[in-house]
């Protein structure tokens, strides 16, 4: 759990410091939570998601983005047994569907115009997901 918290802190620092500057760290926390949901149980990922939502919420109200930030990883955690023995298949399915669901629900209007910025963001989210595979595999091995 401590390693998971550490990974979330790194993702949070990258997103806050470099997000919005074109480096592709805009969804680092979401992708990290989805990745961790593949190895953590529902309670653990819910706690991490709520803390991430607390630190990332930019307005006093509740928004679709903040709800999704918590609910998508929880959903992934609930469904992580779908591909038993096929960890990487389940991992990438979770990342692709989770990020896709994020963009569709957060603002569907953006999805009707596939801009180069959107393509770059999604591509860089997958690159970050690739970086997370190594620590996630270690966590998965240690949790057995």
């Amino acid at each position: 759990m401590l390693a998971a918290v550490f990974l979330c802190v790194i993702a949070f620092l990258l997103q806050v410091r470099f997000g919005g500057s074109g480096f592709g760290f805009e969804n680092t926390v979401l992708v990290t939570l989805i990745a961790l949901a593949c190895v953590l149980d529902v309670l653990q990922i819910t706690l991490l998601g709520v803390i991430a939502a607390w630190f990332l919420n930019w307005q006093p109200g509740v928004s679709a983005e903040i709800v999704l930030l918590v609910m998508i990883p929880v959903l992934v955690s609930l469904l992580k047994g779908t591909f038993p023995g096929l960890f990487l298949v389940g991992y990438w399915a979770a990342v692709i569907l989770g990020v896709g669901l994020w963009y569709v629900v957060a603002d569907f209007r953006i999805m009707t115009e596939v801009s180069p910025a959107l393509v770059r963001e999604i591509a860089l989210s997958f690159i970050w997901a690739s970086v997370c595979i190594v620590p996630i595999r270690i966590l998965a091995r240690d949790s057995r």
Partner: protein
Amino acid sequence: MSGKYLLGFLTVIAVLLAALQPGFGFWVREGIQGGATVSADELRSENAALKAQLARREIAQYQLPDFPKKATLVEVYSRYPFGLKSELLVNAGEKDGMRVGQPALFHGMFVGVITRVFDHAATIETIFDARAKYAVRVGKKGVDALLEGGNEPHLTLIANGAEIESGAAIYSAAPSVPYGLAIGAVKEGRAGRSGLFQESTVTIPYGIGEIRVLEIMTEYASPSL
């Protein structure tokens, strides 16, 4: 089993903190993002200098409006932390005279409009938001164009044959925004993807991360169409 109870308890505490103390997250992100706060006096002097610069460009099609007499200076609490959208949260809301549709200026330049108000806070959708679209005019001849927002705002729907030069001023011409507010300048023109119109990249002389104080034109009421 006790571990699960502890996790559940911590989750409930986290939910309560997130609901009751959202400002803590703003403070943490502000500390990480860094940046100095611009004082109101610095803002006014820079605005006067910018107006003088624009006047020297002899833009004949319009006159810059006077610095709004009824404008409220507000501080930026936080920024939208994810991609594609660009929103700012400011420290004044409905009880401070903020209303949806009021324009926000930075150094006298149009930045965006208020889209949501709370009691003592308001969110502003900026021109760096992918959803932002504003009718604008360009340069001395007032060429019509559409400003499309995003990380790199750009102009589209410029008539083929219209002459726009690099450095030409871009100013607002949308019905929902006061006419003639400076937005930026033309960077480089290019042919549009469809071939029917021209497009151009835009120079905005500030970054979204630099904005710490805004002026809200509280006297302006967006005309209902």
